[in-house]
């Protein structure tokens, strides 16, 4: 196993370091806050004044655990209401680095509104860490967390089998849980799952390799996090070029001081972020709406002309032909853009206290386009224990289910199962602007149900 070394200035300053976003899921009882605190503490991301505050509070509360009497869970306590109630109520973002990589951790509370928080945390995550209490094994809640992860297609899953110290570091217990886990992941068709025996409280196999689990030869949590591929790496390499246009840069009168007005009089740059794949100057591309074909004549990265770009770079493209393109247009590799559709068969994660019923008028935001829409039918609610869709005509807060949406104008939305950014959308309340739901276009056939 590679030796992991932590923040020394040289490592932190390495130029080739990359970023990994991951989320943690699990309840307070699983020791999630302690695991997060342990990651921060052992990777030396906790600075002296924060540590002093934790030590003070630990002492006041009479915490008697390990790590020199530090209640590491306190490191993740955010808002005062949470501290008073001893719970976490919202996703909190934490930052830490090792010599290899920088991490953004979305810490998702497990108890309250777990669907909402899990979806929020997982939507941008390259990896999710799911906690299991070694004394309890795979619970209903574990299945639910893994279901959300599977539906959102998070490419890497780390299952931390925690509190392994409380079962005497038993390999048998670990193997039993692994069997349960294999069954669930097979049912969910979940890819890229890794299980690790850990004790967040004692620090076993989180950052430091445990001396008490010699039967376990795999990586520690941090070693895995340092090596797993980020979504953008996977999607820029394997998927076709896709570029939703955010806005058109035509400086005309408002040119940057010092630039030659004549040179930039006709400048027209299509600004956006590469959603997947890569592009080179000279490549032929296709534009929707309109199905025009043209060629990329230039790629600008803030005043610097570059030869090629890949996900997730923000650039401006110059094209050989002038089209009347606006925000919402999508530029993509020839022959790969989805046909714009006026109907979406979607899996949605309903996040608002107002229910979704047939006839609900909403807005759909996909890529850089927002259109009016109606939920024409609610197909059913997903039972997170069996993953089956059960017929209903109403989705309530924290329900996951299938619906059909009719759109006021066609949108080139892709299949989420092929590309996450191309197939993801928001459902928005048209009057007050609330985000009602997260949606993914699955192109599923709902014909087994009466619509």
């Amino acid at each position, binding site marked *: 196993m590679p030796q992991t070394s932590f923040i020394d200035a040289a490592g932190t300053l390495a130029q080739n370091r990359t970023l990994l976003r991951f989320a943690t899921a699990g309840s307070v009882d699983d020791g999630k806050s302690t695991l997060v605190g342990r990651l921060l503490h052992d990777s030396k991301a906790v600075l002296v004044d924060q540590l002093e505050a934790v030590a003070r509070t630990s002492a006041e509360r009479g915490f008697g655990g390990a790590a020199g009497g530090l209640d590491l869970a306190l490191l993740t306590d955010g808002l005062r209401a949470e501290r008073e109630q001893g719970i976490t109520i919202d996703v909190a973002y934490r930052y830490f680095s090792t010599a290899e990589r920088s991490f953004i951790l979305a810490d998702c509370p497990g108890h309250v509104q777990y669907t909402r928080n899990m979806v929020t945390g997982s939507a941008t995550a390259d990896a999710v860490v799911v906690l299991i209490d070694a004394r309890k094994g795979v619970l209903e809640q574990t299945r639910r967390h893994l279901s959300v992860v599977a539906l959102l297609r998070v490419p890497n899953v780390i299952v931390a089998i925690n509190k392994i110290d409380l079962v005497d570091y038993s390999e048998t217990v670990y193997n039993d849980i692994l069997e349960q886990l294999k069954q669930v992941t097979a049912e969910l068709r979940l890819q890229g799952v890794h299980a690790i025996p850990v004790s967040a409280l004692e620090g076993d196999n989180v950052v430091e390799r445990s001396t008490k689990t010699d039967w376990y030869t795999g990586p520690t949590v941090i070693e895995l996090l340092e090596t797993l591929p980020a979504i953008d790496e996977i999607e820029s390499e394997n998927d076709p070029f896709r570029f939703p246009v955010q806005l058109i840069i035509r400086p005309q009168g408002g040119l940057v001081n010092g630039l030659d007005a004549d040179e930039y009089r006709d400048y027209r740059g299509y600004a956006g972020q590469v959603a997947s794949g890569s592009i080179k100057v000279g490549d032929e591309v296709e534009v929707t709406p309109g199905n025009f074909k043209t060629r990329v004549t230039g790629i600008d990265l*803030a005043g610097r002309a570059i030869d090629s770009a890949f996900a997730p770079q923000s650039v401006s493209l110059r094209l050989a032909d002038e089209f009347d393109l606006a925000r919402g247009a999508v530029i993509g590799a020839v022959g790969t853009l989805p046909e714009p559709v006026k109907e979406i068969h979607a899996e949605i994660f309903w996040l608002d206290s107002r229910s979704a019923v047939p006839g609900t008028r909403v807005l759909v935001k996909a890529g850089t386009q927002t259109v009016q829409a109606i939920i024409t039918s609610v197909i059913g609610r997903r039972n997170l224990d069996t993953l089956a869709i059960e017929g209903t005509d109403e989705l309530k807060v924290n329900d996951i289910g299938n619906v059909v949406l009719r759109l006021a104008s066609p949108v080139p939305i892709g299949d989420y199962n092929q590309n996450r950014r191309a197939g993801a959308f928001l459902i928005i309340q048209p009057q007050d602007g609330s985000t009602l739901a997260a949606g993914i276009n699955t192109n599923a056939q709902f014909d087994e149900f009466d619509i």
Partner: protein
Amino acid sequence: MSISEIKTGQKLAEHRLGLLDTLESEAIHIIREVVAEFERPVLLFSGGKDSVVVLHLAAKAFWPGKVPFPVLHVDTGHNFPEVIEFRDRTVEKLGLRLEVASVQDYIDRGILQERPDGTRNPLQTLPLLEAITNGKFDAVFGGARRDEDKARAKERILSMRDEFGQWDPRNQRPELWNLYNGRHLPGQHVRAFPISNWTELDIWRYIERENIELPPLYLAHEREVYSRDGMWRAVGPVSMPNPDEVVETRLVRYRTVGDMSCTGAVESNAVSISDVVLEVAGSTLTERGATRADDRISEAAMEDRKKEGYF
């Protein structure tokens, strides 16, 4: 133990964006989204390093066009003169419109009262909110980062504010993928934080890489200071030492620039940006803990101010 096969990172090396490029790309995407979807954005610009970085990113986002929105400075009146000079020069260089909301003006008009401790950071809220209302700004860019503080760790990238400028941490919109929902009711506005995901070290490494100019007090310089509450305070018109506090000349620099009366300096030999990067990388105190007296008052200090509409 691997339960099923994963895609390995091996053959992906060619398309691997580094940390700073990833953060820059995300920030530019956010800035462009806000400009595309809002009527009247504005950028809070204090001359502090975080707002300087946001302005730099905005300039990159719209090149070869100018930054398509004005900047707003909430001026406490307790300024370091070097910062004001830097502010004006930067705005001039980029050809931007500068609006100033003056705390002093509110005090002169009797609307705000000076606090007994003399700090004016908490007094910025009202002038800020009125400047937002009067300017009809619907999106307000800020340089806040989630790593600064526990309350900010839960802040969204696009964060709704009601007509009192209040942040309701229990009722935040879920933020999904890179789809930002900025729709709001009349009277509400949105705070937009493009560098939410940057750490202090990321900021410094980016300043170094992009060669971004900063007010000179971020680098070590000799200054007359005295020690109070474990921080070095500059001697100045609004920060005079008490008779028992000893004034001495020391080599110091600032990690944040704000209200001169409550912003402390740290002793430092960092005379260049790369020195600062090394210093920050090896630092053991958080930025706010080290140098902001007002954040040390209580553990929930920042949360309280944010709820009241602070940045």
